[in-house]
C-alpha cells in the first residue's frame, strides 16, 4: 500500500498523468497518477493518505520550481497529474469522508485572459484540500461578489499577468471590500509585488502556487 502511495507522489511530482501520456519521456508507457490512484482506492488506502501523497509530490515539484530546476510547463503537468488523482477523490469529498479546509473562489481579473498562474494555483490549492470555485478569466467584480454571497466564509484569489490589468485588480478588491468587508482577498501575478498588493488593499500576496497554499492555510482556515 505504501508503495502505491509513493508512486502516486512520484507521478504527481513528475507530471505523469496516466499510462497514455507520453510525458515525461522516461516514464512513457508506464502507469500514471490515474492508474495508481485507482489501485490505491481498490486497496482501501485512505483518501487522506492519497491526498497527502499529492501534496508531497506538489511540494517537491514546487521546490524544484523555486530553484529553477523545472519550469511552468512541468509544473502544469504536475498539476494535471494531481487533477487526475483528485477526480478519484471527489466522491470522498462529497460524502464528507475527507473534509475540505474551506472554499476558495479564484479568477483572473477583468481584461486579462491569462490563465497559467490561475490554473496552477487552482489545482495546487484543490490538491491541498480546499474546495475551489474557478471563475475563469476576464472576471468582473460583480461575478466575484455574487459567488462570495453564495459561499459565506470563502477566501478570494485574484490573478493577473498584464501590467495593464493591475488597475482592474485594485478596483475588484475595492468593490469586494465595499460589499463584503470581512472577505479575505489574496492576489498573485507577474506584475505584482508584496508592496503593490498591500497598497491595493489585498490581505495577502503569493508569488507562486506553494506560497498561495501557505498563505491560504494561514489566513483562510477559520
Amino acid at each position, binding site marked *: 500500500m505504501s508503495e502505491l502511495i509513493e508512486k502516486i507522489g512520484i507521478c504527481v511530482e513528475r507530471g505523469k498523468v496516466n499510462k497514455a501520456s507520453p*510525458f515525461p519521456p522516461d516514464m512513457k508507457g508506464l502507469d500514471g497518477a490515474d492508474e495508481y490512484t485507482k489501485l490505491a482506492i481498490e486497496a482501501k488506502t485512505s483518501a487522506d493518505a492519497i491526498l497527502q501523497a499529492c501534496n508531497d509530490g506538489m511540494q517537491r515539484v514546487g521546490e524544484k520550481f523555486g530553484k529553477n530546476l523545472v519550469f511552468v*510547463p*512541468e509544473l502544469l503537468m504536475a498539476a494535471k497529474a494531481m487533477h487526475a488523482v483528485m477526480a478519484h477523490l471527489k466522491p470522498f469529498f462529497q460524502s464528507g469522508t475527507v473534509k475540505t479546509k474551506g472554499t476558495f473562489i479564484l479568477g483572473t481579473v477583468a*481584461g*486579462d485572459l491569462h*490563465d497559467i498562474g490561475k490554473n496552477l494555483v487552482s489545482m495546487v490549492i484543490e490538491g491541498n484540500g480546499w474546495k475551489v470555485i474557478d471563475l475563469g478569466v*476576464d472576471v468582473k467584480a460583480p461575478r466575484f461578489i455574487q459567488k462570495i454571497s453564495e459561499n459565506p466564509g470563502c477566501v478570494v484569489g485574484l490573478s493577473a499577468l498584464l501590467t495593464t*490589468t493591475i488597475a482592474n485588480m485594485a478596483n475588484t478588491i475595492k468593490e469586494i471590500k465595499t460589499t463584503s468587508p470581512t472577505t479575505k482577498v489574496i492576489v498573485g501575478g507577474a506584475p505584482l509585488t508584496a508592496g503593490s498588493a498591500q497598497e491595493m488593499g489585498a490581505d495577502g500576496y503569493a508569488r507562486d502556487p506553494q506560497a498561495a497554499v501557505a498563505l491560504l492555510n494561514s489566513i483562510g482556515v477559520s
Partner: protein
Amino acid sequence: MTDKQWELLKRVVNGETISPLPVGFIVDCPWLPNWYGCSILDYFTNDELWLSANLKAMNDFPDVMFLPGFWSEYGMCTEPSAFGARCSFPANEFPHAHRVISSADEINSVEVPNPATDGLLPFVLNRLKLAQPKIEAAGHKIRFAVARGPLNIASYLMGSTELLTTMMMEPDKVHTFMKTITTFLKNWLNLQRETFPSIDGILLLDDIIGFLGEDEFRTFGLPYFKELFDPSVQIRFLHNDAPCSTSAPLLPKMNVNLFNMGFDVSLKNLKEITHNKVTLLGNLPPRDVLAKGDAIDIKEKTINMLATLEDKSRIIVSCGGGMPPGVTSESINLFVKTVQG
C-alpha cells in the same frame, strides 16, 4: 523616430558608449491615451487622435526615443484578429482577444491568414499610410515592423495553459502551430517593410518566453524567433517582461540586438548573462518607482541603477517593460534629467 534618434540608436546597438546615456521608452496604449487625455476606445478608433497623441509625446519629450514610435496597433487583438479571434474593446480598458481553438486537436484547422486583408491588420497598415505624410512632415519616419511574438500569439489562439501542456504531451502539434504562426508573422512583417521602406527594425513582443525552461525554449521558441528576426534588418528588438534569466543567454542566437526586460533582473546581471552582446533597454521598476514613486524615489533609484554599471556601453535607460499607466510628464522629465546628470 527622427533621423538623429535613429542614428543614435544604431550607434548604441553597435557598441558605442554614449554620454550622457540615451533614454528610451516603449510607449503604447494604455499609457499614451491616458496621458493625452482621451479614452482608449477613441485612441483606437480615431486616427487623428492617435496621431496627435503620438506627436505630442514626441514633441514634449524630444530627448526620449519612443520605441517603436507611431505604433499602430489594437493591443492584444492585433494579430489574433487575423486568425478570426473575437475581439473585446471595453470603453476605457485595454482590448483583448478570445481563443480561436479549444484543444490541440484543432491545430491543423488553423490557416495562415493574409495580413493584407484579414482581421484588423489592414486598418493597422492603412492608419500608418494615411498618417505617413504628417509623420514625415514632423521630422519622423516609420522605423519598425511590429508584431506580437509567435509564442504570445499561440497562447492567445489556444490558451496559455493548453499551449504549455501540449508542448509536453504533443510536441509535433505545437511545432505545426508554431510553423503556421511564424509563416503568418513573416508575411506580416514583410508587408510592413514593403509598405514603408524606411523600416529597418523589427520589434517582437512575447512574454510567454518567460514561462519556458531552456530546453522548451530551445525547442519551441528559438528556431522560430531566429527565423523572424531577419539579420538583414539593423535593429532586432525583443520585449519580454516575464522572467528572462533562462532565455537571455540565447538572445544573440535569436538574432536579437536590443532587449527590453522585466524589472526583476538588474542591468548588471543581464550584461553578464548576455556577455554585453545585446543592447539593454531598462530597467527602473515601472510601477513602484516610475509611476508611483515621488521625485526623491525616482531620482535615487535612477542614480543607484546607473551606479551599478561599470561599462555603460549598450545601455538605453528606461523602465522594465513598457511605460506603465499613470506616469506623469513630471516623472518622465525628472527621469531624463537625472540620467543626463
